[in-house]
C-alpha cells in the first residue's frame, strides 16, 4: 500500500486525504496548527454564526455535492432562500440592485445612461486574440467600457478575490468569463447561452446548520488519527525514488507520495530544495491579499427601514471609486441572515464585513483597537445607522486570499513542469486554480483520482 503524506489540513488537503483513504491508501495529514479546517471555521458568537472564512458554497459543483453526500451531511445542509439572490452595489451613495439580466441592466440606474449604452454594445466587440494576457480591468474596459468595468468588474474582483482588477489575470481568475468571449462571442451572449443550457435552474447557495465548519469537521472526524495536529513541516526531501517529509521537530516521515496543500508561500519554503529556483520563485510569486472579517449585529428595531430592506439580500459590494469617496476600507458586506435566517437570532440583523484586500492593504497594519473602531464607524456611516452595531467577532487574515496576478498561468506552468519531472510530489489548494471551496474540492478530487495508491512491487 502506498504511503501518502498530505501537508496542510485545509479543505484541499483534507479532501485529498479523505478521498485517497477511501481508495485504501495509507494517508497521514500533517497540520502545523491546533485545528484542522484551515480558513474554514464557524463559531456562534452571542447569537450570530460568524464565518471566519468562506460564507457559503454554490450547489453547482458535482465534486462538492458528492463529497457532502459521501460524508453523510445531506441532512445538515441549508439552502439559501430567494432573498440571497439579491445583491447590491453601492454607487453614488445609494445601494443599487445588481441587475442579473441584460434587459434589467438597461433600466438600472447603477450606471449612467452613457455607461449602459456602451456596455450594451458589448456583443459587437471583437474577441481578444488567442493567448493574450489581459487583466480583468483591461478586459472589462475593452468589452463593456470604462464605467461598467470600474463598477461591475471592480465589485466582482472585490467580492471573489478581495482583489484589484488591474492586478488580476483574467484567464486565471475567471476562466469561464474568457470562455464566454471565446466561445459565444461575448459576455451577454455567454450569459444567455448559460441560462438556456441550465434550463432556467440557477445555482443556490448552501451552508450547514452550524455553518461551513461542518464540512471540514466531518472530513477531519472521518480521517481521525490520520490527521496530526501541531505537526509543522520543515522540508520535503528526496529519499531514493520516494520522499521524506521532515517535521520541524526533526521527525522524518517516509512517503511514496507527498501532497503539499498549504498556502503557496509555505509550499515554496517546504519544497525549495527539491523544486529548483524557477518553480520556487513561481510559488513565492503568488501574493496573498490581507482580509479582515468583522461580524456585527444589531436589533432590527434599531435599523432604519432601508437597512431592514437591504438586509433581505446576500449583501452588497463597494467598488473602489465609491470606497474612496466614503473613505472606507470595507470591500463589501454580507447579511448572514439574508441567505440563512437561522444563522442569527430572530429580530437581529447580522452583518459580516470584508475589509482591506489588495485595495486597502494598509488596513492590515492597524492595531486591533483601531481596526475595530474604524470598521464599526465606517459600517455605521455606510448603512446610515444612528446606533452603532455591536461587534460579535473580528478575524484578521494577514495573508488571506491568493491573488492570480498577471503571469499566474505562466507560474502554474513552471510549477507543474517541475513537479511532473519529480514524480510523486503534488501541490493543491486555493493558490492555483480557483480560490473558492468548490474549486479546492474539485482540484483535490482530480488530484486524488490521479494519484496511484498502489506501489509496484519490485
Amino acid at each position, binding site marked *: 500500500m502506498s504511503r501518502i503524506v498530505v501537508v496542510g489540513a485545509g479543505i484541499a488537503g483534507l479532501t485529498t486525504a479523505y478521498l485517497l483513504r477511501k481508495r485504501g491508501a495509507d494517508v497521514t495529514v500533517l497540520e502545523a496548527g491546533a485545528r484542522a479546517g484551515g480558513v474554514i471555521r464557524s463559531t*456562534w*458568537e452571542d447569537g450570530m454564526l460568524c464565518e471566519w472564512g468562506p460564507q457559503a458554497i454554490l450547489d453547482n459543483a458535482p465534486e462538492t455535492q458528492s463529497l457532502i453526500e459521501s460524508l453523510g451531511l445531506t441532512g*445538515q445542509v441549508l439552502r439559501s432562500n430567494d432573498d440571497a439572490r439579491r445583491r447590491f452595489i453601492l454607487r453614488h451613495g445609494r445601494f443599487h440592485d445588481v441587475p442579473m439580466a441584460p434587459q434589467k441592466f438597461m433600466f438600472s440606474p447603477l450606471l449612467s445612461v452613457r455607461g449602459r449604452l456602451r456596455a450594451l454594445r458589448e456583443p459587437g466587440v471583437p474577441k481578444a486574440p488567442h493567448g493574450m494576457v489581459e487583466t480583468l480591468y483591461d478586459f472589462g474596459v475593452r468589452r463593456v467600457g470604462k464605467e461598467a468595468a470600474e463598477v461591475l468588474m471592480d465589485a466582482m474582483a472585490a467580492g471573489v478575490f478581495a482583489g484589484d482588477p488591474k492586478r488580476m489575470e483574467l484567464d486565471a481568475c475567471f476562466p469561464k468569463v474568457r470562455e464566454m468571449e471565446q466561445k459565444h462571442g461575448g459576455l451577454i451572449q455567454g450569459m444567455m447561452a448559460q441560462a438556456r443550457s441550465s434550463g432556467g435552474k440557477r445555482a443556490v447557495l448552501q451552508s450547514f446548520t452550524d455553518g461551513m465548519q461542518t464540512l471540514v469537521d466531518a472530513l477531519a472526524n472521518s480521517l481521525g488519527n490520520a490527521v496530526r495536529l501541531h505537526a509543522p513541516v520543515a522540508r520535503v526531501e528526496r529519499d531514493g525514488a520516494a520522499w521524506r517529509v521532515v517535521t520541524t521537530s526533526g521527525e522524518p516521515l517516509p512517503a511514496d507520495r507527498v501532497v503539499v496543500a498549504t498556502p503557496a508561500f509555505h509550499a515554496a519554503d517546504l519544497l525549495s530544495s527539491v523544486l529548483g529556483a524557477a518553480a520556487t520563485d513561481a510559488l513565492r510569486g503568488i501574493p496573498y491579499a490581507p482580509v479582515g472579517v468583522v461580524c456585527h449585529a444589531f436589533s432590527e428595531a434599531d435599523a432604519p427601514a432601508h437597512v431592514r430592506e437591504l438586509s433581505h439580500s446576500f449583501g452588497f459590494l463597494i467598488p473602489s471609486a465609491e470606497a474612496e469617496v466614503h473613505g472606507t476600507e470595507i470591500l463589501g458586506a454580507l447579511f448572514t441572515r439574508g441567505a440563512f435566517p*437561522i444563522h442569527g437570532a*430572530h429580530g437581529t440583523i447580522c452583518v459580516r464585513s470584508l475589509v482591506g484586500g489588495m485595495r486597502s492593504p494598509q488596513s492590515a497594519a492597524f492595531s486591533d483597537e483601531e481596526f475595530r473602531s474604524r470598521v464599526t464607524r465606517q459600517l455605521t456611516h455606510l448603512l446610515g445607522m444612528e446606533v452603532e452595531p455591536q461587534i460579535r467577532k473580528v478575524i484578521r487574515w494577514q495573508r488571506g486570499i491568493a491573488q492570480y496576478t498577471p503571469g499566474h498561468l505562466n507560474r502554474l506552468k513552471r510549477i507543474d513542469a517541475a513537479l511532473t519531472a519529480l514524480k510523486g510530489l503534488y501541490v493543491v489548494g486555493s493558490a492555483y486554480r480557483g480560490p473558492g471551496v468548490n474549486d479546492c474540492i474539485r482540484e483535490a478530487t482530480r488530484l486524488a483520482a490521479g494519484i496511484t495508491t498502489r506501489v509496484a512491487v519490485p
Partner: protein
Amino acid sequence: MSRADRFLKACRGEAVDTPPVWLMRQAGRYLPQYMAVRAKTDFLGLCKTPELACEVTVQPVDLIGVDAAIIFSDILIPVEAMGMKLVFDDHGPSFPEPLRHEAQAAALVVPDPNEKTGFVMEALRLTRKALNGRVPLIGFAGAPYTLLSYMVEGKGSRNFEETKKLLYTRPDIAHSVLEKLAQTQISYLKAQVAAGAQVIQLFDSWAGALAPDDFETFAAPYSKKILDALKDSGVPRIYFVLDGGTQLPAIQACKPDVVGLDWRTPLGWARGVLGNAQAVQGNLDPCALLGDLPTLKAKVKRILDENAGRPGHIVNLGHGILPPTPPAHAKAFVDYVHELGMQKP
C-alpha cells in the same frame, strides 16, 4: 434588556443579554417558604386555592431570581375534571380506580376548563397581577400519553406494564382516551392563555418509556395536535419529553417553539440533530444541585459551552428540582447562568 424580556425572547430565538433560566418544579418542597404555605392545607388544597397557588408561584422569582414563573398546579388536575377520582397522599398522586375498562374510557368527559378548573385560571390571573411584569408566567399541561399512563397505572410506574398491555391489546381504547385528553388539554391550555399564561409547556414525563414506533403512534400525534391548536394563541410552546433524546426527530416534527431536553441528552448534539431552527431548554442534571458549588459552576459552563452562543437557549434542569436541594444551590445555579451567560467573547 431586562429580566422581563429574556425568557420570551429566547423562546422565539431572539437576541438576549444572557440565556434566561428557570427550574422545573421551582415552586416546590426544597423551599422552606413553600413548606410554610403548604402546611396550611394539603397538596390539592394548595392547587385549588388561587391565593396560595399564586403565593408559591411567585416565591422562586423573589427567592431564587429565576427569569420565569410557572403556575403552581399539577398535571393531573384536568384529569380529575374529566371524571377520574384523584388522591394526593404522602406517596404523591394516585387514581384509586385506575382506567382498565372500556366503560371507564367511555365515561370520561371533556370538561369546560373554566367551569371545572377555574381555580387554575384564577391563580394565573392573580399571579400575573402579583408578578406585575417582572418575569413572564408559564402555564402548563401534561401531554396525553403521560396522562394516559397515570390513568391506567393509577400511579407512577417503573415498567408501565398495564399501559402497554392496553396499547398492545386494545389500542382503540387507548386512542379514544388520548383523543379526549388532547381535546381536554387544548381547551385547558387555551383557557390558561386567556387567563394570562404567556408561555405554555407540555410535559411528557413518561413518553420516554415508549419504543420509537409507539412514540410516533401514541404520543407524538396527540402532542402535536395540542401544540398545533395553540399555535394561533401566539404564545411560545415548549414540549418537554423526559428521556426523549432518541425521539428528537419525532419531537421536532411536533413543531414546538422550544424543545425541552433532559440531562441525558447532550445539548450540543441535540442542537446538531434539531438544526438550530428551534430553541432548546435545559439541561442540568437536577442532582448537580446536590453537589458542591465549584462542580455546579463547571457544569453550568459546560451547558453554555455546548450551546456555544446559538440563539434560543433557555437554561433549566433536565427534570424537576429535587426536595433535598439546598435553596442556596438553586440560587447559585441561577446566578452562575447569568454571570457566565453575560460574559461575552
